[in-house]
């Protein structure tokens, strides 16, 4: 579980996040949603430790980020997995090498064990027929699946996904969303997904944090968001004419 207590993030004169309080639950798909420019990516990068917060604290399973030494932070980083918006696969490596990479770099497992573990996760994301392919030879959806396998191969406690279904067709997007949700439940990971896709919100939003202009406006579940009663949330959720009509 991740608890966020009154965090603020400032870049020079502009405050991007202001006094954010939120919690992200273990074994659930937690979503950060909001319009472009609302501060979602900065918030996610703060949770990852890629941005240093100016105020407040982030508590990872009882351990406050403010009380961690550099060594603790490095160890915490190794308990995190990340699925990037553009997949961020290593171009020169095959699917198998990409998934095995964190094991090669960070563990002292035998070669066979690493191979076995990487193959287990590749199989989990249904890419066993593409293990020798390079990222350039894969479709966008397949690249995302490799990225998910690579992110979870180290059995992380925390999984962060930055718009994992952006650029994908609606059907593939739902497959990716469902895959993340299944893996989250199966391995009891605290998953935080950055998204502005309403399909994802409805499909997998077990815990949703809504941001606007760097402020947390609302937190709830996918069952509650359609009837939140909050004007700003409604403005975002019902921004499409189609959804309005459906309502």
């Amino acid at each position: 579980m991740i608890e966020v207590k009154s965090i603020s993030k400032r870049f020079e004169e502009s405050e991007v996040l202001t006094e954010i309080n939120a919690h992200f639950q273990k074994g659930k798909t937690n979503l950060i949603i909001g319009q472009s420019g609302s501060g979602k990516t900065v918030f996610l990068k703060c949770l990852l430790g890629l941005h240093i917060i100016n105020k407040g604290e982030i508590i990872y399973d009882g351990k406050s980020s403010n009380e961690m030494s550099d060594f603790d932070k490095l160890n915490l980083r190794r308990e995190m997995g990340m699925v990037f918006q553009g997949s961020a696969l290593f171009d020169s490596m095959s699917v198998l090498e990409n998934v095995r990479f964190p094991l090669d770099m960070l563990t002292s497992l035998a070669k066979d064990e690493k191979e076995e573990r990487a193959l287990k996760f590749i199989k989990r994301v249904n890419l066993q027929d593409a293990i020798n392919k390079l990222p350039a030879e894969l479709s966008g959806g397949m690249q995302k699946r490799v990225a998910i396998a690579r992110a979870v191969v180290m059995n992380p406690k925390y999984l962060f996904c930055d718009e994992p279904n952006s650029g994908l067709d609606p059907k593939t997007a739902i497959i990716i969303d469902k895959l993340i949700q299944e893996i989250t439940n199966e391995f009891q990971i605290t998953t935080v997904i950055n998204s502005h896709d309403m399909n994802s919100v409805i499909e997998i939003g077990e815990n949703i944090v809504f941001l606007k202009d760097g402020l947390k406006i609302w937190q709830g579940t996918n069952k509650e968001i359609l009837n939140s009663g909050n004007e700003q949330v409604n403005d975002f959720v019902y921004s499409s004419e189609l959804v309005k009509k459906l309502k």
Partner: protein
Amino acid sequence: MVKISFSKSCKKSILYKQIFKEINDLVLDSIPIVSILSFFIGGVVAIQMALNLESPLLSKTLIGFATRQSVILEFSPTFISIIMAGKVGSYITSSIGTMRVTEQIDALEVMGINSLNYLVFPKIIAMLLYPFIITISMFLGIIGGLLAMALTGVPSEAYIEGIQTDFDGYHVTYSYVKTLVFSFVLATVPAFHGYYMKGGALDVGKASTQSFYWTSIIIIILNYIITQLLLA
């Protein structure tokens, strides 16, 4: 950047693999272009020397002497380094820059890997073999001069005698000192431009151009400083 790239080392086996890959990409792959350039430029230098030393009062051995001095002191260490700023420097900047743009460097950092150590350190170590390329360049430059003289009708004996005349080993030492300094510049300046670049694909091209610009300028300025310190 250099300090961080030498700290928090990745696993040794991974680093060795990366170093061998970089030796192949940066050093071995550069041998063909350096060989061709050195051979022909050596020939041109010898022909131009011959053209300027037509007086019967001047010994033909001076052609070999002047070609050797030009190639060892300046052409091989400095001008080959500027050409390498284009070849190796662009490769380093664009490969690291593309990794930055496509979030691959962020992916390394999120995994808790020191990305500078993984990406830049092997390049610095691989470039320690750069003097090997310059040795080939010196040898082929002088051989190119010999062949050009043979085709021009200058006796080979005079050229060979010339390249042995007043040979000073210190000049070779000076040349290798320059080469080692330039090898560090060739690995680090382009890596800096690639690693700290911002923007998209178009900016990778701009960063490569900037990297060549600054690497060349730094090499030329260092060339002057080292020459002032060691030869003046």
